[in-house]
Every structure is written in structure tokens, then in C-alpha cells.
């Protein structure tokens, strides 16, 4: 049984299509990257999974059931809009929200302490939320999301505003969730993080699915006809190269349709070029994103 199954989902607001015929699934022990430009329909899709709003058409199943109060206890959700009880302490906030999730009150504090320690926040346990920095509040929000050990975790921009240390902590937490067999949906604009932690991606634009599948396969599909060459010597023009792009430490040679990377390598060797690195160019997710969504994109 999949953790999440979405089929032919539709949602409109006042005639404007927010989600159009979206279908995807997420398995336990997997991280799905949900990416897309602003206004693409990611948050609307998440809210339909969370039973906060109802779809106009289509089917959503969480662990084989229609989203309801019963399924909410098995989910952890960290929305993009950050918000906690400013006047409550860290432990009071975690305890209250964890109890609403159905967690046994006797275990809340110990579980919370473990996560606080893991994220370096234990010393702030008794501080009020308003006394914490933005980044610290965000870590607490993440703890609130996972303290009850949910089977499905949905995170919307969990890395936004975090320093490198906390970014790494959050990344390790995500990987740990996956290792423990949780299903994770990660919605973010930070493509480098998607590449680092996600197994599959779903790219949406204007409410529609643009790309869907394993990250490696998608990158392979979009692999351009180009090679990356690093050399101390000047790289001469060789046959079959239609364009040269000079980067900081290497040159990118775009090949014509008839050429192959093998032939280009042979040509360079014959030309006596000492080669330090030769690699078939694979586009980054950032580049694929820009290619697919074009001018609508806002990417970090």
C-alpha cells in the first residue's frame, strides 16, 4: 500500500484552476520532491492531502483511506507559513501540539528532549518562542511536525532561512526519516537540497504535472549533447562542436547531432590536448526547472 495516492485531482477557485488533473504516489521509505514556481498549486495540493480543503474532483488516499480526522494523526505537516504560540515555552508548545496529534502525554517530554538535543536546541527548552531567532523557531516547528513519529511527513520549505549548520541538521533528519521507512514529501525551491535528499520528483506548473519520476531518470532524459573538458592547455576547435561555453574551471563543448562524446574525446587526444577531466554533461535540476517552467520560475 502506498502512503499517498493521488489520482486525477482537480481544484479551482473562482474560476481559476489551481490544480488540474494531478496524479502521483508516494511510498514509505521514499522522499518525493514537490517542486514548481510560485502559484503552481503545490500548497493547494498539500492542503487537499491534509483534508484542510476538499478537491473538486479526483481521489486522494492516505494509507489507503480518504483523508479524515483519523488519518491526520498519522501525518506531520510543516506549512510554509511559520507560526507558533509566541507566549508559550518551547516545551509547552511541543507538548500541546503533540497531544493534539494523539501522542501519549507520558512520552511527549522524552521524545521532545531527544529531538531538541539532536537539533542542538535542548538549552532553549524552557524559553518562550518569542525569545528564539527565526531559524530556531523553524527548527522547533520541524520538531513539532515529527515528534509524534508520523508515517507521512510533508514539509513545505523546511530549509528557508536556515544557516548552513541547521540546514545540514534538517537534511540529516530527513534522511533519517527515510531510513526509518517514513514517506516524505518535500516542497522546496532549493534545487540543491532536492538533488541531495529526494528519490523522485513531481514538478508542477499552472496546476499541471510537468515532470514526474525518479530524479536520475529525469536528469538522464534531459542530458544534453555536450561534454565538459578540463585542461591546463588551450582547447582547440575540433570537428563536431557547434558551441563552446567557458566556465570557471572547465569548458563545455556542445556537440552537433552527428557527433558523439567518444569521437570528440578521440579528436582532442589526437590534437594533443592534455586532459584532466572529460565528462558527459548532465543538467542540474535547477537547469531542468528553468527549462521546463521558463519565465514563471523563481528559484533560489
Amino acid at each position: 500500500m502506498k502512503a499517498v495516492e493521488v489520482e486525477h485531482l482537480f481544484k479551482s477557485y473562482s474560476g481559476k484552476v489551481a490544480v488540474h488533473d494531478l496524479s502521483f504516489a508516494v511510498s514509505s521509505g521514499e522522499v518525493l520532491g514537490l517542486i514548481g514556481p510560485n502559484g503552481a498549486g503545490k500548497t493547494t495540493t498539500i492542503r487537499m492531502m491534509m483534508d484542510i480543503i476538499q478537491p473538486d474532483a479526483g481521489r486522494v488516499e492516505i494509507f489507503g483511506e480518504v483523508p479524515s480526522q483519523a488519518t491526520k494523526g498519522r501525518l506531520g505537516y510543516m506549512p510554509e507559513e511559520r507560526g507558533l504560540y509566541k507566549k508559550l515555552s518551547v516545551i509547552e508548545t511541543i507538548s500541546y501540539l503533540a497531544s493534539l496529534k494523539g501522542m501519549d502525554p507520558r512520552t511527549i517530554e522524552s521524545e521532545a528532549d531527544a529531538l531538541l538535543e539532536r537539533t542542538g536546541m535542548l538549552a532553549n527548552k524552557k524559553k518562550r518562542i518569542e525569545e528564539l531567532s527565526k531559524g530556531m523557531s523553524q527548527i522547533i516547528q520541524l520538531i513539532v511536525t515529527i515528534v509524534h513519529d508520523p508515517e507521512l511527513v510533508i514539509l513545505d520549505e523546511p530549509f528557508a532561512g536556515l544557516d548552513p549548520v541547521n540546514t545540514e541538521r534538517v537534511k540529516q533528519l530527513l534522511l533519517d526519516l527515510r531510513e526509518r521507512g517514513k514517506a516524505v514529501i518535500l516542497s522546496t525551491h532549493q534545487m540543491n537540497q532536492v538533488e541531495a535528499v529526494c528519490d523522485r520528483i513531481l514538478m508542477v506548473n499552472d496546476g499541471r504535472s510537468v515532470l514526474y519520476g525518479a530524479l536520475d531518470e529525469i536528469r538522464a532524459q534531459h542530458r544534453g549533447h555536450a561534454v565538459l573538458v578540463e585542461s591546463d592547455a588551450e582547447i582547440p576547435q575540433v570537428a563536431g562542436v557547434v558551441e563552446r561555453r567557458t566556465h570557471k574551471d572547465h569548458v563545455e563543448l556542445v556537440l552537433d547531432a552527428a557527433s558523439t562524446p567518444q569521437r570528440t574525446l578521440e579528436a582532442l587526444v589526437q590534437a594533443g590536448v592534455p586532459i584532466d577531466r572529460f565528462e558527459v554533461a548532465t543538467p542540474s535540476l535547477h537547469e531542468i526547472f528553468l527549462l521546463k517552467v521558463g519565465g514563471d520560475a523563481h528559484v533560489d
Partner: protein
Amino acid sequence: MSTRTGLILRHEFLHTIKKKGFIILTLAIPVVILLGIGIFKLASNVVMPSATVTRIGYVDHIGGFDPLYETAAIELIRMESEEAATEALTAGELDEYFVIPADYVATGTVARYTLDKELAPPLAVSAAIEGFLDSNLLASEVPPELIGRVLTPTSILTTTLTPEGAVAEDQGGFTNFIIPALFGALLAIALNVSANYVLQSLGEEKENRLMEILLSTVSPGQLLTGKLLGRGAAGLLQVLIWAVSIPLLLRLASATIGGLVSSIQLPPGLLVLGVVYFILGYLLFAVVSLAIAAICSTVREAQGLAPLFTLAAIAPFWFVSLLMFFPNSPIWVVFSIVPFSAPVLMMLRLGITGVPAWQLAASMAVLVASVLGGLWIATKLLRIYLLMYGKRPRIREIVRALRAG
């Protein structure tokens, strides 16, 4: 009640009763009354003079005016002339004096002289001079034993009977208005404060962007119910503390101050009705507050709209003098049934007059129906607007949204 609703209820209740403002307001009323009793007692001992005799001189230009009866506190002394009276006054032999002019019978005016600067003659002095003059004017016309009856105002003792002819338990009277008026005032305060707590609670969660986390965990109905009951329980606790402490304090005041206070009685059933009207009134104002908080983006914006409804709770006090004299006027009957003014207005009317059972039943029925209707509207608005921020929707848009469901 679901566990989640119970958890929200508990959280809201504890969060409210721990607020400084709640504690201060709850304790302030009884403490102020207690302080009032203490200060009155202290002031009485300082202000009230020990029993001394006031010596009042008089100069009689008509002739024949004599003190016909004595009082313990005032001594009337005939003086031969105004000069002699002034000399005696300045020498401290008199406390004051008055002159009966030759034309007193025609004008009714006497001239009074004193060394004290005062707003008005002391009541005891005025009564003594008036009694002296009246008794002398009547002496030649009325037998002595009747003079006292003519001078003493008639005391009318009223007894209220039941329709069956028995003596009614609740005898009414001005002093019996004090308790309901006090209850009414406290009810108005409690309703406004409790509704504001509910509004603040939801408004803050919306403003702090907590809504999405909460709605991913609980349903709008559970959230609304938990808040209503939790904050309501805190408000009820406040009202009960007042309801228990104030009668005790009034008993203490009776023993200490006496007078008017000692004749105050707690009308039977008033406490029960007070609690019932608090619960119904609170639920009504609270669901309206929730609906307002749902459509507003900030607490401040919501608090700006709330008085449109909560002022109705206070409005009866603006007309209390008219209410006292015409408590059964049709306009008051109507507004005792109109939901927003009903709780407080009915409490005031209960202290002034007997309210027919049908009016009590009608006002409660309308309140219950209003609460249920308000709850339906508030739940719908919560579902639609809880995650919306920015410009507040217009009434047209709200109505359209409610119709669309």
C-alpha cells in the same frame, strides 16, 4: 466530546485563567467591595463626630416662638438680638443662629448665620429649624399630640401578595434592585471580556499563522468547540467567583455598615438565572467573535469590529432610569427577547419587576436559536476564511460564500 476538543478546551481554559488580566479582573471586583467596606468603616470613625450637642441660637422678631420639644443633639437658645447672637457665635457660645423676621409668615424665609463654609445646611440642622418653626406655627391650631404626626412624613409600608393572596417571598423594593443591577453590570463585563478572549485567541492563532498547523490536526468544528467551551468555562468561573463572593461581602457589609446595605436581599432564583443568561449570552457573543476573527487577518482588525455587537450588552444601562420607572414597557419587553440585549436587560428587569414566565421562556428560546444559528454561520466562515489573509471580505461576499457553502 472528542479527545482533541477536550485538549483544546483544557488548553484554552488554563491559558485564560493564568492571564494576568483575568486574575486581576476576577479578584478586583470582590477586593474593591472589600476595600470599600473597610474604607467606609475607617472613614465613618474619623468623619462622624462624637455625640455633641449643636447649640443653635434664634432671634424671634415675631414673638411667641419657643422650643416645644427637645432633641438630644440640638439645643435651641433664644437670643435677645442679632448683635447678641453674633457676639455669642464669635465667642463660641453658639454654633450658629437664625433670625425669624417679622414677615416670616408671608415670605417663609429665615436668615441663618454660621462661621462654617458649607455647600448646604446640614440635614439635622435644617430638620431641627423646620421642626421648630412648624411646631410653633401649628401650636395654636392643632392639639399637641397631633403636631408630631403632622410634622413626621407618612411612612407607607407595602406588602406584595401572590395571586393566591399569600405574602410573596420577593417583596421587591429599591434595595432589591441593587443585586440584579450589580449582576447585570458584572454580566455585561463578563460577556464583553469573555467574548474578547475568544476573539483574541482565534485572532492570534490566525495572525501568527498557526491555523494551518492546527487545521492539519483538528477540524474547524473541534477547534471552534474547544475554544468556545474552554474560554467559556473560564468566564463562568469568573462569574461564579463573583456570585459567591459578593453576597458574602454584602453580608459583611451589612454587619459593618448597616443601613441600606443591611436590607439588601438576594432574590431567590436570581443566581440560577444569572448563570443561565451568562452561559447563553456568552455563547452568543463568543460565536459572533469567532466569526469576526475568522474573516479578519489581525487581532486589531477583529477587535475594531467586535463593539458593533458587544455594545448591545452595555446599552441597557444607558436607559436604566427609564427602565426603573417603566420596566414593563413594550420596548423593554422586545429588547429583553432580542438576543444581544436580552441577557443584561432581563437581569435588570428581574430586579425591578416580576417578569412573566413566558417572557423568560421566549428570551431563552430566542437566545438558544441565535446561538445555534450563529454557530452554523461561524463554522462555515471558519472553513472558508481561516486560511485567507489580506483585505477583509465585504458583507456581500460573505453572504455569497455562506450561500455557496
